[in-house]
């Protein structure tokens, strides 16, 4: 009897296993439908996030009126730095579109006890709470990043005298490290979100994320003096937010030939850091879930 029933059971289990990609696409579609319901609001949101980027570039245009580069002989001149800036926008917009709205929601789920509903669903809890919402308007900065990146690259590659020459492999590696950067940022965010299970309220920790990533928005060379070294160490090895933007931006903007060994090490380290931070953050998240006590309604 049991031998005839076993395949059936297997099939049922097979059917019950969630197809993560499909679930994610459904989430993304739902978010898009919701965004499109209030179309004017969506357009305004796009407009506002684009204005921030315009202001940002305005600041650096002013800065570069007074200096040729940032740091002594670092090679971060105007267009190299604009590549850096574009990389910042690319990574930040992806993080803001896919992870930010969910992290914001998470601390609310804890406070209200609604996390119960996520826990009982037959799907990985971390997946569910990480991808439920997509903020499509935030992606407008992604396109701004692409525009700035293309323009700066074109400027550098057609520069008279010493035009920038890039190996084709770089264009393959760049997206890979953009994704690595997003994953590191995601790990930091999910770790902070997990602590809200212990603390019950994490408004401050949420701001903390903003201030923490603030350190990642500049070329790492600026920290290479005096006590800046300790900051550099902390934000490279302990909380690896400094490699998030620096590594991909450097690939395009600083093709020193031959590459100095420390750059190779740094690039390799970025991969390692991605894997490690994902792994550690998941462990912390699971650990935190164990101490979750539902709030009564």
């Amino acid at each position, binding site marked *: 009897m049991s031998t005839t029933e076993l395949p059936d059971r297997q099939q049922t289990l097979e059917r019950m296993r969630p197809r993560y990609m499909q679930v994610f696409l459904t989430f993304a579609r739902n978010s898009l439908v919701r965004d499109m319901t209030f179309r004017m609001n969506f357009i305004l949101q796009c407009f506002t996030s684009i204005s921030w980027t315009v202001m940002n570039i305005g600041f650096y245009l002013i800065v570069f009126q007074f200096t040729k580069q*940032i740091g002594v002989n670092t090679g971060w001149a105007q267009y190299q730095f604009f590549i850096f800036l574009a990389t910042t926008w690319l990574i930040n917009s992806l993080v803001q579109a896919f992870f930010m709205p969910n992290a914001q929601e998470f601390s609310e789920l804890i406070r209200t006890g609604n996390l119960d509903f996520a826990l009982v669903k037959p799907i990985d809890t971390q997946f569910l709470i990480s991808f439920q919402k997509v903020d499509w308007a935030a992606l407008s900065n992604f396109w701004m990043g692409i525009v700035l990146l293309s323009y700066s690259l074109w400027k550098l590659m057609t520069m008279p005298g010493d035009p920038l020459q890039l190996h084709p492999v770089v264009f393959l590696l760049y997206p890979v490290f953009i994704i690595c950067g997003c994953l590191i940022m995601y790990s930091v965010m999910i770790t902070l979100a997990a602590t809200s299970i212990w603390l019950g309220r994490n408004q401050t920790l949420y701001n903390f994320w903003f201030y923490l990533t603030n350190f990642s928005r500049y070329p790492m060379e*600026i920290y290479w003096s005096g006590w800046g070294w300790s*900051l550099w160490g902390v934000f490279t090895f302990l909380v690896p937010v400094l490699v998030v933007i620096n590594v991909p931006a450097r690939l395009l903007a600083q093709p020193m030939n031959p590459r100095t060994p420390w750059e190779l090490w740094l690039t390799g380290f970025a991969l390692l850091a991605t894997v490690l931070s994902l792994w550690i953050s998941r462990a912390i998240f699971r650990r935190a879930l164990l101490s979750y006590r539902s709030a009564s309604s």
Partner: protein
Amino acid sequence: MGSEVQYQPGHSDGAEKNAGVWGLVQGKLSTWWTMMRIALEERLVYRGDFALGTLMRFLPIITQIFLWSAIFMARGDGTMEGQSIKGFTIHTMIAYYLLTMMGRAFSSMPGLSSGIAQQVRNGEIKKYLIQPVDMVGFLLLNRVAHKLVYYGVALLPFVLVFWLCGGYFSEHFHSSPASWPSGSRVAVFVLSLVLGFLLGFFMEVCIGLISFWFLEVTSLLFIYMLMNFFLSGHMFPLDLLPDTARMVVDWLPLKYLAYFPAAVFLGLVPDERLWYELAIEVAWVLFFILASRLMLARGLRRYSGFGG
């Protein structure tokens, strides 16, 4: 707590008749004091969160120090000695950023406009119409209480950071023609901080009150925030702007929110212009007080409350 603010028409009318003007003032004062005390207690509920949040606001100054050091170093090809941008040495620059933080601690009003707009939209504003409480006055006292708690908590970190960065100040005053602030300059500095608070408050109230006419002011508010960030001197000293832009910005009230107090303290404003500038700031404050009064009166006339 609530019973003290309760309005008792018969009773207080009698008291006012007896005591005259003084009684009226006393009544008002005790109402204000109660409103402020409630706001203070409200603020102190999440003390730990508040203190931590205050400390973290100092983190961006660290990146600013490194960023500008790198810029000055690049200019001087490895040394910051003698390098200056439009009269700003590295020391002036850092001291400036620290001082704008102080200015912003007075003039920034998180959630004020959006709060007013929300109350207009969902009809909560009715409560000011049926209570003998002036809405703008209530909000102002609330803000004062909020700021007082904030300074109480932020005083220690501020003192610590200014002490740690004291070198930037002494280097600035050592190398620039300006001397350490005299008594009158300190007075103008303090006044400019207080006026900055009032200016920031009434400007945001006006923006919030626009919601009587347009229900959605989020985008308008955003444009204001953007301009505020960029043109108040919070992001960079306004002296770095190109000359024509500088002239336009000089005519806007935004510079009083961050740039002006810092410039006064650092001696970037000539002594003979100090009081003149301050008078213009007072005029701006009065303008926005009047505007907010007018808008509130006009707005309430066309307001119809929905919902409960």
